[in-house]
């Protein structure tokens, strides 16, 4: 009875996004959890919770999702912004929704995130993984899809005046792509950079978080999200795995990815009719 009610609620919330998650590729270790703590039911539940935001609040429009490889290791690299990581949630939802069979995106987050009570555990159930080198190596070895925001925490806290200008672009994802021979799909997210302008940052160290953001609005503004996927950058064809040890090569590859994301951002901004439309 309770299960059927839950199922019905989930279907109602998810609407057209309600799909068969039994096909979700998953390293189930016998109790329904993968070694990183992800669980299919949580992914399904999260999809139902995120779907209304995706459909009605941010009214996400997705372009070029067919660029995401159906299998094998892949790194999705995107710009990052918006004070709170709604951009990560929308991109996560978009990938789950547009891949067939559904692929579980593994968002890579800062190392302080697992220290956050409730948040760290909830995120791990959904497939989020802290970005230590060992973790990401293992995921790519298993042929998983990594969601990386090379701008990191400075990106999500960038000043409003810097919107759509990529911040310091970390290079670890390029090294990983070369070493694991994984293609990189560049992604530009238009919308989140305007959702929650930040007016201040209080430099407190709570559970390892670098600062406490003070946004202009209590809730994110209902901006329209546009997610643009670019053609996969074939770093796996252009470089050999051993070249991952060459800093110049890694820098060059990271710059290629950054340029591709900036190009998609510029293109998306030109196409956009308005912040809320």
């Amino acid at each position, binding site marked *: 009875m309770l299960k059927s009610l839950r199922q019905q609620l989930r279907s109602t919330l998810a609407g057209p996004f309600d799909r068969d998650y039994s096909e979700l590729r998953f390293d189930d270790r016998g109790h329904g*959890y993968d*070694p*990183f703590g992800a669980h299919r039911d949580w992914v399904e539940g999260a999809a139902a919770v995120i779907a209304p935001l995706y459909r009605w609040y941010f009214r996400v429009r997705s372009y070029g999702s067919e660029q995401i490889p159906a299998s094998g290791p892949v790194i999705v690299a995107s710009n990052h912004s918006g004070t709170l990581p709604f951009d990560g949630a929308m991109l996560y939802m978009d990938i789950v929704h547009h891949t067939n069979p559904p692929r579980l995106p593994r968002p890579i987050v800062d190392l*302080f995130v697992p220290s956050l*009570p409730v948040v*760290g555990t909830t995120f791990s159930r959904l497939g989020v993984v802290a970005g230590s080198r060992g973790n990401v190596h293992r995921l790519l070895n298993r042929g998983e899809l990594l969601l990386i925001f090379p701008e990191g925490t400075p990106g999500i806290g960038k000043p409003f005046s810097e919107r759509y200008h990529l911040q310091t672009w970390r290079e670890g994802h390029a090294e990983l792509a070369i070493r694991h021979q994984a293609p990189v799909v560049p992604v530009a997210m238009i919308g989140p950079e305007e959702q929650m302008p930040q007016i201040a940052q209080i430099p407190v160290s709570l559970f390892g978080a670098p600062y406490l953001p003070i946004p202009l609005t209590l809730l994110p503004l209902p901006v329209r999200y546009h997610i643009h996927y670019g053609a996969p950058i074939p770093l796996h064809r252009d470089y050999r795995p051993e070249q991952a040890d060459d800093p110049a090569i890694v820098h060059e590859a990271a710059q290629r990815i950054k340029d591709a994301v900036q190009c998609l951002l510029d293109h998306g901004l030109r196409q956009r009719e308005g912040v809320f439309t």
Partner: protein
Amino acid sequence: MNRHLITGATTPLGRALIAELLAAPDTEAILAVGIEPPSRVDLPDDPRLTYTRANLARSRSIRKLLFGPAKDLKLTTIAHLAQHRSAAAQGREAYALNVESIRDLMPMAERHPTLRRFVYRSYAEVYAVRADKPQILAEDHPLNLAPRTPQWIRDRVEADLTVCTRMGMSPLSISVLRFAECLAPDMGSQLHDYLQSRVCFRPLGFDPMLNLTTVADMARALALALRSEAQGVFNIPAWDTLPLSRVIQLAGRRAVPVPGPLMTPLYAMRSRTLGTDFRYDLNAWRFHFSGVLDGSRARHVLGFDPTHPIDWATLAALLP
């Protein structure tokens, strides 16, 4: 030639290993070593098995053992399992068995005329489990060398490193097996003691992944290592990988999340009033952050894969 010396032979793991080795027809002799007098030891009746009493905390006992019965029986391998299991065992006496015995045992084994293989039972608890470290623990994962680490862990790290240091310097072929925690009675499992209460407090907002093994899988891994010539460190993972909340639920206990800072005083009080062995300071990190052993090296080199899941129904039935 398979002629084995098993220390810690009277523990559940020692007994399971002996049974596993006796089941193999190529086992010619086993010398089981324990601290208990023979009259109090319940081991299988097999002509290939000999029991001897020895206190491994004393150097002279080790010498007598190795150059006495172990020499007479022409033993070829050692499985060193003897360690204080209780977290309450502290001080010089515990250190003498946990660490000093290895410092004595290894050089003597190297001088022994027939011994050529040394397998040491180590623990997953030697690894540092932290938010900023990988959740999947490979053999090169950082060790728990934090300044205020309790002796129970510090001894295990030191013993592990003492054995590792001799790899390549010793004529013995040496393997260190780092086992996932064995959720069973009398195995020194902190988690098993934790589950003795009907109500189990856990840190609010955290539910880490645990990897829990069985005696049967441990014995099989040890038997494989004894027969192998492979040197090095091997993680021995478990079949069961699940979050702490699920462990509590499967054990038929009630989980009560409480703010992390209250955990230490609550369990210190429990330990003082009930005399239980569970110490929260030993487990604080792994009650917050996940640590699952990566067993790929053991799979490729030793041919070990965990096959025995925990029998949760039996475990729950045996808990008070």
